[in-house]
């Protein structure tokens, strides 16, 4: 072989195109399969997912008192509401709300199918940017978020300010008459 050999003789262009595309496709698939673990490692780890549930004894919360505890790194509020607060929550015209929900829709029934209207359980995180609202504050007797001024009512529904939706109700069940399991 010398430098003068013409290298473009007898080249099958279609075959080259096929090899080029096939090699490229395999390389792309390989790159994607390597990239996925590099991206997915940042997601929730198994132990984070496993640390999922807590039990709360409702009988220890006096009327008018609020329990604040951590669940999945976020605060959970359990509020033992007064009669006045319950009636305030129920008397609102639902259609006037930004995120329309009745007070009953924000409660989860016990095994007998009854609602424990006195106890409001929710994730105590403002739906705006995740601050923890302050209890018994704001224009609606419920919660007030100090970060950007969102007002929530006694059912934890957004009434005024920048937050887009009501505070989240976590999944919970009654394990007995007075104990709930969150998560």
């Amino acid at each position, binding site marked *: 072989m010398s430098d003068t050999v013409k290298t473009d003789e007898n080249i099958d262009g279609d075959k080259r195109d096929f090899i080029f595309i096939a090699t490229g496709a395999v390389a792309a698939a390989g790159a994607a399969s390597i990239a996925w673990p590099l991206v997915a490692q*940042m*997601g*929730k*780890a198994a132990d*984070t997912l496993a640390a999922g549930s807590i039990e709360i004894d409702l009988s220890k919360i006096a009327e008018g008192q609020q329990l*604040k505890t*951590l669940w*999945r*790194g*976020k*605060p959970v509020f359990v509020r033992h509401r007064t009669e006045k607060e319950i009636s305030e929550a129920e008397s609102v015209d639902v259609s006037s709300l930004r995120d329309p929900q009745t007070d009953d829709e924000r409660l989860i029934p016990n095994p007998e199918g009854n609602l424990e209207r006195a106890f409001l359980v929710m994730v105590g995180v403002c739906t*705006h*940017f*995740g*601050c*923890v*609202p*302050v209890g018994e504050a704001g224009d609606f007797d419920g919660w007030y*978020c*100090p*970060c*950007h*001024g969102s007002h929530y009512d006694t059912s934890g529904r957004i009434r005024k*300010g*920048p*937050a*887009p939706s009501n505070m989240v109700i976590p999944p919970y069940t009654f394990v007995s008459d007075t104990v709930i399991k969150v998560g």
Partner: protein
Amino acid sequence: MSGHPSTYEPKYGATKWIDRRLPIIRVGADFMTFPSPRNLNYWYTFGGILTLCLVTQIITGIILAMHYVPNVDGAFESVQRIRRDVPFGWLLQPMHAVGASMFFLAVYMHMFRGLYYGSYKAPRELLWIIGCVIYLIMMATAFLGYTLPWGQMSFWGATVITGFFGAVPVVGESLQQWLLGGYAVDNATLNRFFALHYLLPFVIAALVGLHVWALHHVGQNNPIGVSAKTKSDTLSFHPFYTVKDGFAVAVFLLIFAFFLFYQPDALGHADNYIEADALKTPPHIVPEWYFLPFYAILRAVPDKLAGILLMISAIVVLFVLPWLDTSKVKSLRFRPVARWFFFIFLVFCFILGWCGAGTPDNIAIPLGDTGITFYRLSQIATIYYFAYFLIILPVLGLVEKPLARPDSITKAVLGDQSRGGAQAAAE
């Protein structure tokens, strides 16, 4: 790296040997003799100052990483330990924290300089855009770093900022939890923030390399915006501008030293001396001062997603600025109308910062019994901010009649030689 012909002549056997194999000394020598416009004023010294800032942050940062514990159980305590127990930690930790503020102070001066003298215009669009990318990564780095001391502001600042990603439609929550590595800001978040905070400064250093490369390829802009044409329009970078930069650095370090030694906490927030508590939000969350204008824009609209988009737009608009300003004249010295709109823009940037620090519902400007709230004021300032880029600059370029510009830098500096002798330079 430079666009001027090399003048380096190796003198010794060893330097000749090196120059034939890797012309690294030549690159350095050409850098030092780079022809710079002879009329550069002190506003052009921030490039050098910012380089010093980056080096300071990297050196002090590596030292802090030797003593810092990136874990929720030890982070807060380890930073306090650095300040109290580690030899010279009282000096090095504030040097890094105050240094971050000084870095932003310098970068804002550098950017306003670019805005005033039209440094973003052809052929410097890419130079400007690389600068914008550097600024963006600086903001990311500063945010990540602010989380590390694990105080109340660290924690809640991180919660609010990562909350932005939660506002993305459909995938928001998954995206946010992927970034956090959990349901909320926690140990996984702190670990990755530390890793990324260590990485990004080196990305910035690489981008600074590109920034300087682009600068040397197209040449520096100057206060009159008229390109250097002849040899008499320029001066060698060294010693003329090394000395000028050196003096500016000394003045800058005086300001730095004032904060470092007398007010190390003045630019921070007292709540960051309280360890992070996931159950208690501080009564008033504010970002560091250098983010306040953007924070004010975020809060200027009562809708979560719209607020975030507006805040992002405030930075994106800088990237497209070279194509928004329609005027052919670079320097605002020769644009009598645009000049005043620029000064108003400057004032509104400060007003935005003031609004970002205030509580939205409080009165900013009292008028009789009531007044203008910070919320309302931030809306006015936000409107001007965007109007400046999207309406004023595009329209003004078409309708404004610019003043006569000097023919050359030499004439601007030395006056018209034909009228005899050196005349006082314009400004």
